[in-house]
C-alpha cells in the first residue's frame, strides 16, 4: 500500500506529460510528430513482426559481451593498482587522460580496427565501462580502513587469506558501484554505436525508422524502450547490493 502511495506522484507526472504531448500534437496538427497512441500502435507493430525482440537481443548481447570483458579486465587491474603503489603511479595518469574521452570519439578508430561488425560496438562498450570500474575498484582498495589491515597483520595471515578474506570483500561494495556505473554507460554507448553502423539493435531501429519514411512513432517507441531497459538493467545491478557479502556496507 505504501509502495503504491510512493509511486503515485511519478505516475501522475507521466500521465500529465502524455496528456500534454497528446494535446500539443492534436492542436498543432503535426503530420510527422506522432501522438502517444501512434507510438503505442507502432510498438505493437514491432512486437507483432518480431523485429523488436531481435533489436533488443542484439543490443543486449553487445552490452553483455563488452561489459563482461570490461569487468574481467577492470577488477584485477583495479585491485592491483590499489594495492601496489608503483602500479598506481605508472598507470593512473594514463587512465585519467583516457577516461574523459567520450566513447563516441572512439567510433572512427573502432571502425578502422574492427570494421562494422559486432566487434566495434563491443569494443566501444568495453572502452566506456572499463575506466569507471578501474577507478572505483582502485578507490575501494585505497579506502579500506587501516584497522582491518592492521588486524590482518596482527594475526599474521598468509597473503592468500589477506586477499580473499580482507581486501576483496572490503572492496566488493565499491566494485558493485563501479559495475552499476559501467553498465549504465555501456547501455548509453551501445545505442549510440548502433546508430552509426550495423543492421540491428535499438540504435539502428531509431535511425532506420527515421531514414526509411520518417516513422517517428517508431523512433519514440525505440527511445522509450531504451529507457525502460536501462531502468531494468540498473535494477538488476541494485539487486547485487542486497547480496549478503556486501550488505554490511549499506546496512546503516
Amino acid at each position, binding site marked *: 500500500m505504501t509502495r503504491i502511495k510512493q509511486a503515485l506522484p511519478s505516475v501522475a507526472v507521466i500521465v500529465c506529460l502524455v496528456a500534454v504531448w497528446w494535446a500539443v500534437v492534436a492542436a498543432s496538427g503535426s503530420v510527422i510528430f506522432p501522438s502517444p497512441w501512434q507510438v503505442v500502435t507502432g510498438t505493437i507493430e514491432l512486437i507483432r513482426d518480431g523485429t523488436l525482440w531481435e533489436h533488443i537481443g542484439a543490443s543486449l548481447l553487445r552490452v553483455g559481451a563488452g561489459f563482461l570483458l570490461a569487468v574481467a579486465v577492470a577488477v584485477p587491474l583495479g585491485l592491483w593498482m590499489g594495492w601496489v603503489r608503483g602500479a598506481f603511479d605508472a598507470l593512473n595518469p594514463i587512465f585519467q587522460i583516457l577516461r574523459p574521452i567520450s566513447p563516441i570519439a572512439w567510433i572512427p578508430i573502432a571502425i578502422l580496427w574492427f570494421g562494422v561488425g559486432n566487434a566495434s560496438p563491443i569494443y566501444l562498450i568495453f572502452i566506456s565501462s572499463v575506466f569507471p570500474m578501474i577507478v572505483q575498484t582502485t578507490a575501494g582498495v585505497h579506502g579500506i580502513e587501516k584497522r582491518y589491515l*592492521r588486524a590482518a597483520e*596482527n*594475526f*599474521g595471515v598468509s597473503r592468500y*587469506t589477506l586477499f580473499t578474506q580482507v581486501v576483496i*570483500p572490503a572492496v566488493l561494495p565499491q566494485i558493485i558501484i563501479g559495475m552499476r556505473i559501467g553498465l549504465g554507460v555501456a547501455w548509453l554507448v551501445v545505442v549510440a554505436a548502433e546508430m552509426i553502423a550495423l543492421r540491428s539493435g535499438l540504435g539502428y531501429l531509431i535511425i532506420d525508422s527515421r531514414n526509411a519514411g520518417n516513422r517517428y512513432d517508431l523512433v519514440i517507441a525505440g527511445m522509450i524502450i531504451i529507457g525502460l531497459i536501462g531502468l531494468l538493467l540498473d535494477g538488476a545491478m541494485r539487486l547485487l547490493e542486497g547480496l549478503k557479502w556486501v550488505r*554490511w556496507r549499506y546496512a*546503516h
Partner: protein
Amino acid sequence: MRTKIEVQDVHKSFASDKGTLSVVAGVSFTVGEGEFVAFVGPSGCGKSTLMNIIAGFIPPDQGSVLIDGQEKSKPSSKGILISQHGSVFPWLTVRRNLMFGLSGRENTERAESADHYAGIVGLSGFEKSYPHELSGGMLKRAELARALVVKPEILFMDEPFSALDALMSLRMRNELLRILSEERHTVLLITHDVEEAIHLADRILVLSPRPARIQATFEVRLPHPRKLTSPDVQDLRVAILGELGVDRSD
C-alpha cells in the same frame, strides 16, 4: 614470576607542522607472565603510541621492546591488539571472524574452535550473524573471542570498552575477569578510566602528559572479585587521580 615483556627506554617522536613532536620520552618497565598491567594517563599523552610500539606496529626511535627476551620488530599473533574502534571484519560472520586467525588447520576443527570461544564470550547462537546485526557489546565480545581463539600469550587492550555505555562496560570488565580466571594471559590495558584500571589490574602505571613518561606506579593488592565501593579502592582512586592532577573534591 617470569618476565614476559621488557620495555627499555623507549622514545618516539613524530614530524609535525611545528617541527618534531616528542610523544614517548624514555619509558621503561617490565611485565611478568600472566600479569595484568594498566596504563592511565590524560588523553593525547601518547598511550596509544606506546601500545602500538609494544605490539610491534610502530618501531621506536630509540630503545627496545623484548618479548620473552626476544626483540619485537613486527606484530604477531603472540600478542593481539584490541582497540577502541574494534576491527571485527563486517563482511564476515562471527564464526568466520573467529576462524580468521586460525590458518593452516582443518576447516571443521577451526569452526569448532571458533564456536567454542563464541560460547566462552557469550555469543552462542550468533555464530552465523554478521557484525552489523550485533549490538556494540556483542561486537566487543566477538573481538575478544577472535583474539582469544588464537591463544595469544599477550592481550594488548587499547581503551577496549570506552565506546560502550557505562553498564555494558562494567559487564565486559566482569566478563574479561571471568575469562582470565579460566585462561591466564598477560594483559596490557590502556584506559582513561581509573576505576576500570583498579577493577582489573595488578599494577597501574600512571603516565605523564605528552611526552609520555611513567610518573607513578601503584600495586593493586586486592583480591578478586573487587568491591569498587570499598574504602581501599576509594583511597587508591583518590591517590591515582591526585597523580593525574585531579583534586579529590572533583
